[in-house]
């Protein structure tokens, strides 16, 4: 049984605009899944089906093997937490603490538990010192962390992040990447995120879905996806810089093995140039 599964999911916006077309998506436990695609590919629309914000026009969405119904919707929204692209859409309370407390409050928890969860969530994302600040005094990166803390405080098993790196500075991106990587290891969570920044994907994803015009056009591991440059270009994406550089070196006769992450590429290059056995 998968945590999230969609079967032939189709969704049409009012005005007969087809947003999703026969999507078959699986999210197993303890995994890191990237959904990549250009703007308008349908990534955000797909995510909104994972916790019942959108209802499928046809096909089905199964959460832990069960369809989403009115009866289990609250439980499902606790189970699948979504962090939206723009934190200003998600932070709607006057202080950070109150905003992070919004989800636990809706779960009907008592004040002591709410307090504990809020401060634990703020600690996990490293912003405990911001608890009493007002959101408009925060930087973009801090707001993003507040938005994530607000979802984490509900203790979801699946965390869905829509374009998590949008608007972050390089340090913010690096911090967020290590945070995403820590979630499955430390807390056993499944992380699903969307991006069109392909360079980020090998660092934080085990499995990739490529979307274009509401369809899944390819899926597989990093190795399987990034060896298809033509397919990626056809959907207005590209192969990340590291594998592209290694392939170019390989084509020029350098005996270097393929790598996708920075650490693997460093290792491969050192080996190729005789600096490591």
């Amino acid at each position, binding site marked *: 049984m998968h945590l999230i599964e969609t079967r032939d999911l189709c969704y049409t916006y009012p005005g007969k605009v087809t947003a999703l077309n026969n999507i078959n998506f699986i999210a197993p436990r303890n995994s890191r899944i990237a959904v990549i695609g250009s703007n308008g590919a349908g990534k955000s629309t797909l995510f*909104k089906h994972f*916790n019942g*914000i959108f209802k499928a026009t046809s096909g089905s969405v199964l959460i832990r093997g069960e369809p989403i119904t009115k009866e289990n919707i*609250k439980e499902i*929204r*606790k189970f699948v*937490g*979504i962090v*939206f692209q*723009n934190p*200003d*859409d*998600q*932070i*709607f*309370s*006057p*202080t950070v*603490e*109150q905003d992070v*407390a*919004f*989800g*636990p*409050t*809706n*779960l*009907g928890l008592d*004040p002591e538990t*709410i*307090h504990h969860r*809020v401060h634990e969530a703020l600690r996990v994302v490293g912003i405990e010192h911001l608890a009493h600040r*007002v*959101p*408009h005094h925060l930087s973009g990166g801090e707001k993003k962390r507040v938005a994530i803390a*607000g*979802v984490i405080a*509900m203790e979801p098993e699946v965390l869905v992040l829509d374009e998590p790196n949008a608007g972050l500075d390089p340090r913010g991106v690096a911090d967020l990447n290590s945070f995403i990587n820590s979630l499955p290891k430390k807390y056993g969570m499944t992380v699903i995120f969307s991006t069109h920044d392909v360079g980020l994907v090998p660092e934080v994803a085990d499995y990739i879905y490529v979307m274009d015009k509401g369809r899944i056009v390819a899926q597989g591991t990093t190795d399987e996806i990034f060896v298809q440059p033509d397919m990626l270009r056809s959907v207005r994406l590209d192969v990340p810089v590291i594998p592209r550089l290694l392939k170019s070196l390989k084509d020029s006769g350098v005996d270097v093995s393929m790598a996708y992450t920075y650490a693997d590429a460093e290792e491969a290059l050192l080996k190729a140039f005789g600096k490591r056995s």
Partner: protein
Amino acid sequence: MIEELFQIERDAYKDSPVHRLDARVKIVIAFAAIIALVAVPYSPMIYTVGAVFFLFFALLWCFTGLSPVIYARRALAIIPLWGVIIFFQIFLKNKYYTTYDVIMSLPFGINIYAQSVEFAFILLVKFVVCISFIILLSTTTKMPDMLEGGARMGLPAEFALALGMMIRYLFVFGYMFRKMNETLKTKCFDAFDRKLSYRYRLRQLGFTMGTMFIRSYEQGERVYTSMLCRGYGRESYLFVERKPIKRPEWAFLSLSLAFIIAIPIIVWLGQFSIF
């Protein structure tokens, strides 16, 4: 106006003994002063009560460390609202007097009455002192603190949640408006530039306002979606942690309340007047 909003916030974030007081203490004092003043009968005794209350307000203002100019600017900003109401009282008869003496006759049968002028002055005193306490409250209390104070004092959960969101998005739209203004300036648009046609300027301002409206509508949709994602429902409320009022705050509140209640009673019983 938007810049005023940010200025009020900057003032509220300053530090002083009055700023540090629990929001509940300030809310109770402000509302007690307003209720006490409103309860004073429409008679010249209000001048004495008003003067003593204003001195009390002035004393508190001194402790805020803020310039009196800030107070004057805020009070003047509200003049168009209450000034007009007070001004027109001098032409009208009201239920508080039985006889009216005309002190000036104007065309079209309009008269200015001595009693109406007195009534207008009484209203002026009530308005000025009430508004002064509101300005003191808003200038020394952060908006979230004010909301939390209200919620702790029993403000209904629905109101607290809605007000909380209003506070949050007041600033989001404040920043949005500021950015749009900067964009207009970058493109050399000035709404008061007489070289540009009146119609053109009006149309551009209309576009700006329309864009703000559409963006606020879209923002509302997105916020509602994200609220649903976090389990928003009929039972949702704003989480406010318990916070006891400290002993010195209790003492200050008790003394202030005793003072606010005692002054009108003393003036009324003793027919005491400093004017």
